[in-house]
């Protein structure tokens, strides 16, 4: 269809307004992060004149971000790997019909999207574990990782769909050659599912890395906090010292933005896949 000049102009103006709304806050934070507290109070909006890099070293030290980073990497890494693995364990036999009542189990798993909010009893459960199995109870790293690991969510559903599109002849041929079930899953099926696994990894990793309420609810000692809870604590401590807080924001956001620039195509496509298939 032909595009008229006025429509074009309208389109670009809309995009321009939105770009301002989405980019200016980030630039503003970055700008503030280099100001000394006095400079900021005197002129909050002006472009930074004297670069105050010591803000960053101070924020890094005061916020003990290195410890939070290690925790975030640990939680994101483990729960993503586990989620992919057990989603495969759940999806493969159901998609292939290798277990009885596969359809029923599928329905049972899908229900996870519609069940009532389990928060109240989850909390009771974690407190119960704390008393009886302390290694996986309330305020334990393993407990939190288990809570964040699931083989029955969106990743599971995407896997079922994808596995159905892989030819069954492979199973038969591998079985004929004496390949066992678990070896087939890990050495043959897993590599074949690369595109959908990439999507699953991205969805799970973003969700775990950014989990804000989970750590606040289930991890009480600062030593166990990931970066999200650490940032909240940092805000609590430094209230209105915005240059320092802006450093905190930048320290947390910059690695994500850099990573995003490189793999943004996969993330956007992955999120799209996840949304459409769920």
């Amino acid at each position, binding site marked *: 269809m*032909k595009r008229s000049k006025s429509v074009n102009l309208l*389109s670009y103006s809309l995009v321009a307004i*939105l770009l301002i709304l*989405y980019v200016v806050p*980030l630039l*503003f*934070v970055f700008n*503030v992060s280099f100001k000394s507290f006095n400079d900021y*109070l005197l002129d*909050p909006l002006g472009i930074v004149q004297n670069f105050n890099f010591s803000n960053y070293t101070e924020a890094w030290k005061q916020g003990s971000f290195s410890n939070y980073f290690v925790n975030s990497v640990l939680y994101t890494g483990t729960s993503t790997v586990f989620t992919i693995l057990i*989603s495969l*364990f759940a999806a493969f036999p*159901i998609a292939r019909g*290798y*277990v009885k009542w596969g359809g029923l*189990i599928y329905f049972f*798993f899908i229900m*996870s999207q519609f*069940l*009532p*909010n*389990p*928060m*109240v*009893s*989850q*909390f*009771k*459960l974690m*407190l*119960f574990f704390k*008393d009886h199995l302390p290694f996986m109870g309330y305020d334990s790293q393993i407990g939190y990782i*288990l809570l964040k690991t*699931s*083989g*029955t969510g969106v990743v599971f559903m995407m896997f079922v769909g994808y596995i159905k599109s892989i030819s069954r002849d492979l*199973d038969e041929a591998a079985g004929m050659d004496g390949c*066992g*079930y678990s070896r087939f*899953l890990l050495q043959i099926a897993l590599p074949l599912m690369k595109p959908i696994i990439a999507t699953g990894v991205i969805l799970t990793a*973003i969700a775990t*890395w*950014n989990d804000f309420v989970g750590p*606040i*609810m289930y991890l009480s000692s600062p030593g166990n906090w990931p970066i*999200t809870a650490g940032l*909240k604590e940092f805000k609590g401590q430094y209230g*209105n010292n*915005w240059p320092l807080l*802006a450093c905190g*924001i930048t320290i947390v*956001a910059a690695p*994500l*933005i850099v990573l*995003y620039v490189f793999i943004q195509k996969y*993330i*956007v496509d992955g*999120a799209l896949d996840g*949304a*459409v298939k769920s």
Partner: protein
Amino acid sequence: MYPFGRGSKRLIPYLLLLIPLLLYVVFYAGPSVMTVIYSFTDMKNVPGTEVNFVGLDNYKSLLFSGNSSERWASIGRSLYFMFVVTILQNGIALLVAVVLNQRLKGDKAYRAIFFLPVVLGVAVVSLIWSLMFDPISGPVQQLYSVFGYKDTFFGSFTHAFNYIIFVQIWMYMGYSMLIFLAGLQSVPRDLYEAGHIDGTSRWQAFRSITFPLIAPSFTVNMLLSIIGAMQTFDIILATTDGNFNTRTMAYDVYKETFRGSLDMGLPAALSVLQFLVVLVFVVVAVKQMRQREVEY
């Protein structure tokens, strides 16, 4: 036929399937069902105390006791949040998707930028907007002062909730936009050519060609916004922590479970109410949307 051996080897898929099944039952489905059961008891968050069935007492004291006006206010706020977020977020997202779908220069970069807040996460996004909305030094206040207006933003009893809605939409608009874009890209271009020859206007083309064909992505977006808006409280927790008239049902469940009284029956009953509200709106939305979907 199972090709990977017989006898005990036949059991391996079951054993592996047991891991996700156990995890799901122990950490999710089980607690979900237990929450419903707790909602009819006087369960306390103290080990060793007696538990009695109390029928609908929890529901009554939630909705019809002396201090339930706060509760009704929360419920009202949840509904307001859901309606405003669903309508504005999807409206803006659809507009942006249609605009980007005309293959503007740099459209890939724009869609990546609009999706960025989801990648940054609630902790970062909330802090960014707390800085933007700082009542003393924040840039938005400076902008307001040009028009002779002043606000206390997240510290305002009348406006804080609307600013939270703004942050919610800012954060998730890109996600809805992506879903609409996926729908739009599946609309065959020759349909528009045919429409163009028949002399349809742009608006007519949108209404009678585009809209019916992207109805499925509309349904997905509606459901995600309704469920999301009713169940999220992370932005509230990160900005106002429920102060300044910003408590919703979801926030109340969290607050009463983790920082409230020791009574677990009340938050459990509130979770069930929350579930019923979501259920009603999801069913209504799906029914409405199904009528609009067409197949080509």
